[in-house]
C-alpha cells in the first residue's frame, strides 16, 4: 500500500529494455535551429549597423518621461480652442470621408476586376487591376500626399486625392478577397442565363457581399480618418498643418494639445465605427 507522499513506482514492473529517443533530429532540427540562428545574427548585425545604443535604451525611458512631463505638459489647450483650428478639424473630417467615399466606390469596381473568379477579362483586366491595387496599397499615404501637393499645390484637393488612393489600396484588396470567396453557384446561374459581366456582378456577386462590404467600408473610413489627421503635415489640408508648424517652431506644449485632439478624434471615430460595424453584422 503506498501513501500519497510517494506515488507508485512503475519502473519496478518495467522490462529494463533500453530504448532510444532523441529530441534533436537530423536534418530537421538542424535546419530549424540554423534558420533561427541566422535570423538572430541578422538582428544583431542590424543593431550594430544602425548604431543602436542598447545601453542607452533603459535610460531612454527616463529621458522620454522627462521630455514628456517637462516640455509637453501642460498642453496648451487655449491654442486649440481657436476657431481656425476647429475649422481645420472639420476639414480633416470632411477630407477623410470624401476620400474614403470616392475610394470605396472605385474599390467596388477595382475589387470586381481584381477578383479572379468574376473578373471580366482574366488575361488583361485582372493583372492590371491587381497591379493597380497593389501599387495603391504599397505607396504610403504621406507619399501620395506629397505627390499630389507637388502637382496641385497646397489645399484639400490633394488631401482628398491622397486619401482616395489610400482607401483604394486598403479597400480594394479586402473587397477582392470577399468577392473571391462567394458561392459560385449564384454566379453560374446568372452566367448560364446569358448575363453580361456587369449583370453577373450586380445580380450574382453583389447581393452576397453587400453586408461584408459595408463592414469593410466602415473600417476603411476609420483608417482613412487616421491618415487624414496627418496629411496636412505636407500641406494637404487639415489638422496636420498645425502639427507641422508647431513642431518646426518647437512649440511643444501646443504640439501636445494638437496631439490630444488627434487622439480624441481618432478614438471617437473608432467607437463610432465599431458601433456601426456591430450594428451591420447584427442586421445580417
Amino acid at each position, binding site marked *: 500500500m503506498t501513501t*500519497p507522499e510517494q*506515488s*507508485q513506482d512503475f519502473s519496478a514492473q*518495467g522490462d529494463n529494455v533500453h530504448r532510444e*529517443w532523441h529530441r534533436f533530429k537530423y536534418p530537421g532540427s538542424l535546419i530549424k535551429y540554423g534558420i533561427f540562428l541566422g535570423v538572430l545574427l541578422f538582428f544583431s548585425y542590424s543593431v550594430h549597423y544602425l548604431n543602436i545604443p542598447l545601453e542607452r535604451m533603459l535610460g531612454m525611458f527616463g529621458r522620454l518621461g522627462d521630455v514628456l512631463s517637462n516640455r509637453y505638459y501642460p498642453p496648451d489647450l487655449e491654442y486649440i480652442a481657436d476657431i481656425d483650428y476647429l475649422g481645420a478639424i472639420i476639414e480633416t473630417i470632411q477630407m477623410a470621408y470624401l476620400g474614403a467615399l470616392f475610394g470605396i466606390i472605385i474599390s467596388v469596381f477595382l475589387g470586381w476586376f481584381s477578383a479572379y473568379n468574376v473578373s471580366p477579362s482574366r488575361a488583361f483586366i485582372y493583372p492590371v487591376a491587381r497591379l493597380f491595387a497593389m501599387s495603391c496599397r504599397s505607396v504610403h499615404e504621406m507619399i501620395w500626399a506629397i505627390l499630389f501637393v507637388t502637382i496641385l499645390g497646397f489645399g484639400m484637393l490633394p488631401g482628398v486625392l491622397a486619401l482616395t488612393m489610400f482607401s483604394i489600396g486598403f479597400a480594394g484588396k479586402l473587397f477582392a478577397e470577399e468577392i473571391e470567396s462567394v458561392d459560385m453557384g449564384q454566379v453560374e446561374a446568372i452566367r448560364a442565363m446569358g448575363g453580361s459581366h456587369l449583370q453577373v456582378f450586380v445580380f450574382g456577386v453583389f447581393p452576397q457581399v453587400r453586408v461584408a462590404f459595408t463592414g469593410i467600408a466602415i473600417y476603411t473610413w476609420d483608417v482613412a480618418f487616421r491618415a487624414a489627421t496627418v496629411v496636412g503635415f505636407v500641406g494637404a489640408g487639415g489638422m496636420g498643418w498645425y502639427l507641422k508648424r508647431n513642431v518646426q517652431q518647437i512649440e511643444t506644449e501646443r504640439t501636445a494639445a494638437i496631439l490630444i485632439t488627434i487622439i480624441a478624434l481618432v478614438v471617437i471615430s473608432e467607437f463610432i465605427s465599431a458601433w456601426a460595424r456591430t450594428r451591420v453584422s447584427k442586421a445580417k
Partner: protein
Amino acid sequence: MAILEVDNLRSKYTFSGPEILKGISFQVEEDDFFAIIGPSGAGKSTLIRCINRLIEPSSGSIKLHGTDMLSLKAGELRRMRRHIGMIFQEFNLINRMSVMDNVLSGRLGYVGSLRSIFRVFTNKDIQCALELLERVGLKDHIDKRADQLSGGQRQRVGIARALMQEPNLLLLDEPTSALDPKISREVMGLIRTMATELKVPVLCNIHDVQLAKEFCNKIIGLQDGMKMFDGPTETLDQSNLDEIYAMEVL
C-alpha cells in the same frame, strides 16, 4: 482501508443555485474498476471532477489514502493532483505537440520551472514514456503531432500520459464517448489491463451501460444528484436500471 473514501459529497454551481450532487457516499478499493452510470445531467461529470477538485464541492469529504482533499491549500492540492491521473472524453491533448511530448507532460507535476521551459526530462522519464507508448501500441507514432492521430490513438496517448504520473487513482470522464464502438472496447480493455497490472484503482464515468457491465466490477448509479445503486456489477439488474434511468423514459 479503501483508497478513496467519499462521504456525503454535495456540490452546487452557484451559492444560491440548485444542488447538483445531493450527498454522495462510496468507497473505492485498490483493485476496483468503479463505474458511475446514470442519465445525462445526473451529476456524473461533476462527481468525477469533484474528486480532484476541478470543480469545488460545497460540502462533504473526500479522502485519498486518508488525506482529506477538501482541506488542502493550493500548493498542497497541486502536489496531490500529481498522484491522480485523468483521462478525458475529448482527450485534452496538446494538439500541436508531438505524441512523445504529450506523454512526457504527464510528469509536469514533478518537474521544476526551469526544466519545464526547456522541456528537459530525465532519462528515466524518457524510458518510462517509451515503454508506455509501446504498451499502448503507439511505438510508430512517437514523433507525430497529436492532431495527426485518430480518435482511438489520441485516447491511447491520454492513457499513456495519465499513467506517466505513476498515479494512485485513475479518473476517467467518459473516455469512450467520442469513439466508435469497436475502438471503445479496445480502449476500455487497454485501460483495464494496464490498471490491473499496475495496481491502480479506477473511477470511471461512463455513458454506455453495456461497457460498464463488461469492464467494471462495481457500479454506482446516479440520478438527479442522488445515488440510486451501489454494488457489484453482477447485482445490477433491469429493475435497478429502470430506477436509475427513470427520467429518460419520461
